[in-house]
């Protein structure tokens, strides 16, 4: 039995039965991290990880049976964990020490998880490749020359490299699903408001959610069960009952799957087109009913996203000014210079680009034409999805256009890179849950993913179908 290959569920069971100790398990995963440093998935292994595991072993001896008892977890570098550095992949915050725990960290610890490391990411979660980190590029576990996706590329690569069974990432426009697809694992973006954002460094507050990476469906559902639920510290976190995600009806015979005709048009001629068709064929062979649906304006979700997200990012990133926290420019002589010089030294190129774009769409004379219009179209898209969900339970679409690309291969035109997000941004714009499941291979044998989306707060329906499919594939 190789410890690092075990699922979270198996780890917990073996620790509770006394077959393994939390210390042994944690040591095995930390060894795996140390052996694979060249991938640069992890920025720091927490020096108290083994101590945490020993403490957990004591607690378990005294009868503790938390849902993640002794399970090692890796978190993205933008989630506050008291006393630990949280740098958001940025030079600007490289020494920033979190002063309190994010709600998700408290929930992990209450469930008995051992938080072992923080993972690399695109700076301030802006990017789709983890090439934009101030701390170096993360490499794809399946092909060293390719990107792992992003922005949560470190968390995704860490799970794919067996450095932990489950990792946390964050999503604003696909930052969990896209790297999950590129690394051949499962990645969930929950409904907006399903998981607290308290203590998660904000990018675009109306779109951000914590997401979950795992190697199987059950572990993903287990983690959502631990993290979901209202939080008095985050008023956008919904007061909606949390389902028993791990205890589903996995027969799935009654689930209707909607195939949006516009998606087939957007995918035309791309590697994801054939893959989606194969997926549909396979679903039909499992007697799952496919219905044709329409999302007439889905193609506009992408530019809508690239207006709303930078606009909110501009406001959120105003707090990084070289005064309260972050590093301060040495030669600044007055307050305005502190702001300008510190920000110019601290932020990387992609972050500056999005701050500029955000200010452009919010600036006087443009606000109505861009931001307000984008918000109105967002409302229209929500309506269109609601209509589509009247005739189906799950909507499917590809996660990415194609397989993971080569490091450094994207053109200098940022819009070309943004266009990669076409299939993922809609779930954030509409606020619905979406799970990327591994399905199919690209031209060079790298994994592809397919998204299963459901009505808001219907993660359980997604897990039901995903679990059924996982079992049908004999995984």
């Amino acid at each position, binding site marked *: 039995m190789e410890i690092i290959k075990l699922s979270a569920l198996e780890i917990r069971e073996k620790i509770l039965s006394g077959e393994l100790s939390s210390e042994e398990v944690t040591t095995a995963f930390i060894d795996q991290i140390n052996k694979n440093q060249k991938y640069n998935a992890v920025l720091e292994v927490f020096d108290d990880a083994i101590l945490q595991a020993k403490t957990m072993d004591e607690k378990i001896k005294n009868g503790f049976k938390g849902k993640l008892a002794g399970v090692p977890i890796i978190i993205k570098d933008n989630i506050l964990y008291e006393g630990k550095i949280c740098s958001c992949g940025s030079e600007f915050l490289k020494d920033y020490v979190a002063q309190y725990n994010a709600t998700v960290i408290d929930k992990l610890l209450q469930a008995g998880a051992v938080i072992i490391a923080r993972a690399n990411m695109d700076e301030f979660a802006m990017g789709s490749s983890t090439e934009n980190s101030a701390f170096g590029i993360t490499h794809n576990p399946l092909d060293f020359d390719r990107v792992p996706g992003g922005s949560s590329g470190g968390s995704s690569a860490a799970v794919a490299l067996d450095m932990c069974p489950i990792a946390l990432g964050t999503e604003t426009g696909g930052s969990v699903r896209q790297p999950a697809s590129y690394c051949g694992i499962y990645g969930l973006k929950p409904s907006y408001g399903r998981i607290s954002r308290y203590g998660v460094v904000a990018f675009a507050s109306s779109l951000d959610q914590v997401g979950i990476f795992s190697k199987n469906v059950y572990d993903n559902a287990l983690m959502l069960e631990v993290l979901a639920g209202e939080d008095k510290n985050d008023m956008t976190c919904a007061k909606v009952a949390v389902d028993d995600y791990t205890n589903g009806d996995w027969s799935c015979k009654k689930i209707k799957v909607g195939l949006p005709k516009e998606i087939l048009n957007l995918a035309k001629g791309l590697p994801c087109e054939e893959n989606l068709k194969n997926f549909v064929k396979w679903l039909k062979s499992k007697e799952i009913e496919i219905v044709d649906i329409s999302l007439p304006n889905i193609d506009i979700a992408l530019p809508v996203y690239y207006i709303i997200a930078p606009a909110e990012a501009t406001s959120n990133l105003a707090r990084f000014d070289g005064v309260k926290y972050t590093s*301060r420019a040495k030669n600044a002589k007055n307050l305005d210079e502190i702001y300008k010089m510190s920000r110019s030294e601290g932020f990387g190129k992609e972050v500056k680009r999005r701050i500029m774009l955000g200010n452009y769409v919010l600036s006087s004379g443009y606000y109505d034409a*861009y931001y307000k219009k984008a918000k109105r179209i967002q409302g229209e898209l929500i309506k269109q999805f609601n209509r589509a969900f009247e005739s189906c339970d799950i909507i499917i679409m590809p996660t990415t256009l194609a397989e993971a690309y080569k490091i450094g291969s994207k053109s200098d035109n940022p819009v070309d890179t943004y266009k990669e997000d076409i299939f993922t941004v809609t779930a954030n714009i509409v606020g619905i849950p979406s799970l990327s499941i591994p399905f199919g291979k690209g031209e060079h044998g790298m994994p592809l993913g397919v998204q299963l989306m459901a009505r808001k707060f219907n993660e359980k329906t997604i897990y039901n179908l995903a679990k059924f499919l996982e079992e049908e594939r004999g995984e």
Partner: protein
Amino acid sequence: MDIKEIEHLAQLSKLEFSPEEMESFSKEFEHLVEFADIVKNADLQGEQNIQTIDLGKLRDDEIGKSTPTEILLKDSPLVKQDCIVVPRIME
């Protein structure tokens, strides 16, 4: 987009760029604005006043946990007697 407009945006953004960076930004911005213009020019009115986030009720006004000043100031770049130091603002 002309350099003047980029300079104005940089001012709003509290960012500084070298002349070369300005030049490259102004080229990139052509693409970015063209992309954003899809929304501006869309023949789609959209829905007015759609509440995308349900904020629910405000929580009760109760005293909760708070972080002590000395811990909060640990991350500040320059501190003196429990205050963050900045250059003089008044002349």
